């Protein structure tokens, strides 16, 4: 296959028509949605799968003999199978359905780490992490007396591998590291890092929130221990997500929450927990959302993750070229290996003001700290403007961003 062209007519940008939300005007301009790193838009197939389920098949899952309950269970468990296949998990028992990345990481912090961490132990993260991959570890460290270590990043926004390696010792019980930085787009060299961690017996959790929408993820090839991600970042519904974990680790962990569905038998003096993955799924799950997430996986597979990756790579290169050519524009995040997420500043215009001016022209970008305050502190800035590209963006979106930025410069001239 040839390198996809970054033009309206390249194969992949036909995707755009699958996304109803993109076809609207905002403030009198056609919407240019450059905020997929915060949350992706949904293809009609996902929206319809959820609505159809509600109109035709809804009932509670797992517990019913009647037809609707059976249909709902098949659809819900079918989505789990799709997710299992999508990330190449060894078994569906390893696919724990959660409400999102944040819950997945908290689950590991509380059920895996809390029982084993002791004073003197360490948890290691990096300076690049999203708050969701920082605060759960702060909480569990405080609860257990363990220490939180943070590996620094360089001026390009890359983790300093030598420093990271120095911090990896057998005192470290878990390394929590992002696949892709949501603030800077940096793609971490996970294979290398995980190989090092393996040698020292360090358990590795990958925060995959920003990995899933951009590239093919194979958890067995990655060789990590946990991989956490969110449905809404991969064009599925909010309130859905996955914790993938190695079966042996999940098996050994106590349950995270108690409730319906996660038990085999309840007695007041002796409750028997259910098997994996149900042990970690207490209560009525997000049935409709998970079915929608299954439809999102179908959609991504039909487009093809390698195609998406190539398209985004080319479009990101195009965007960086345009932005670099702008006077007074400073890119924040220039990792050698970067996903289609780009932060920047324009002169001394506050990101928040820039965001408003762009919005006026229909261009939706995220501004602020992107839930990664330490990154902002590292660069000594209050925040950035972030333009993130998804499979549905095209060169014209980038052009309109640049035009809008020029107008912002005029306003603040």
């Amino acid at each position, binding site marked *: 296959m040839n390198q996809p062209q970054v033009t309206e007519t390249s194969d992949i940008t036909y995707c755009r028509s699958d996304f109803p939300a993109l076809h609207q005007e905002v403030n009198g301009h056609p919407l240019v949605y450059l905020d997929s790193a915060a949350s992706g838009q949904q293809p009609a197939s996902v929206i319809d799968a959820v609505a159809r389920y509600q109109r035709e098949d809804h009932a509670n899952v797992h517990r019913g*003999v*009647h037809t609707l309950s059976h249909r709902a269970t098949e659809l819900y468990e079918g989505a789990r199978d799709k997710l299992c296949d999508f990330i190449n998990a060894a078994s569906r028992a390893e696919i724990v359905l959660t409400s999102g990345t944040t819950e997945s990481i908290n689950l590991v912090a509380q059920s895996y780490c809390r029982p084993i961490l002791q004073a003197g132990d360490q948890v290691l993260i990096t300076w690049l992490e999203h708050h969701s991959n920082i605060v759960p570890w702060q909480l569990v460290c405080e609860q257990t007396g363990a220490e939180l270590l943070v590996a620094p990043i360089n001026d390009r926004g890359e983790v300093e591998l030598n420093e990271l390696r120095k911090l990896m010792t057998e005192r470290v019980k878990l390394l929590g590291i992002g696949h892709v930085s949501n603030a800077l787009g940096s793609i971490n060299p996970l294979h290398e890092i995980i190989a090092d961690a393996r040698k020292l017996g360090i358990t590795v959790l990958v925060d995959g929130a920003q990995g899933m929408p951009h590239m093919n993820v194979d958890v067995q090839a990655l060789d990590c221990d946990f991989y956490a991600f969110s449905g809404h970042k991969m064009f599925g519904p909010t309130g859905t997500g996955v914790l993938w974990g190695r079966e042996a680790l999940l098996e050994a962990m106590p349950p995270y929450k108690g409730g319906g569905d996660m038990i085999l*038998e309840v007695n007041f003096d002796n409750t028997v927990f*259910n098997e994996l993955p149900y042990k970690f799924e207490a209560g009525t799950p997000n049935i409709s959302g998970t079915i929608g997430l299954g439809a999102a996986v179908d959609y991504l597979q039909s487009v093809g993750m390698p195609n998406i990756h190539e398209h985004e790579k080319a479009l990101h290169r195009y965007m960086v070229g345009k932005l670099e050519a702008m006077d007074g524009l400073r890119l924040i995040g220039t990792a050698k290996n970067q996903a289609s997420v780009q932060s920047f500043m324009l002169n001394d215009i506050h990101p928040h003001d820039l965001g408003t001016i762009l919005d006026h022209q229909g261009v939706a970008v995220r501004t602020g700290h992107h839930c990664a305050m330490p990154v902002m502190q590292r660069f000594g800035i209050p925040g950035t403007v972030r333009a993130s590209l998804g499979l549905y963006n095209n060169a014209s979106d980038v052009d309109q961003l640049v035009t809008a930025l020029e107008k912002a410069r005029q306003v603040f001239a």
Partner: protein
Amino acid sequence: MNADNSELQELYRDLILDHARNPRNFRRLEDATHTAEGINPLCGDKLRLYLIVDANDQVIDAGFEGSGCAISMASASLLTETVPNLSVTEADACFNSVTDRLTKQSSNDTAPATADLSKLKALDGVRTHPSRIKCATLAWHALHAALNHSPSSATTE
């Protein structure tokens, strides 16, 4: 009865109702060599299967205790009539044969030649009742668990 009921009658054949009401070998085998529990948490079916396997790896007796729906009770009862006098390998092959038969569209028959599974055809009605397949296979999962010394509790989850 109308067409509607014929499918129900297919599920609740007389043989099934008979075995459900009067389960055969419904007893604990004190000198069991193999045992396993089967739990279907969703509907509360719960049974314990006992087997006596002799030195030649022949199943010489089978029994069960527990409670459950007609389908699971009848299936367990039929099991205890089926496996005696089979070798351990043959008995375990019955597990595959029964679960394949009930869960797969078409299946090549994997039943050991020595086993008489003809009565188990009475369970065929569950094929069109996917939510009941777990009931019909529960005892067989317990058989498989007992013979393979896997964790003492099998579920059809």
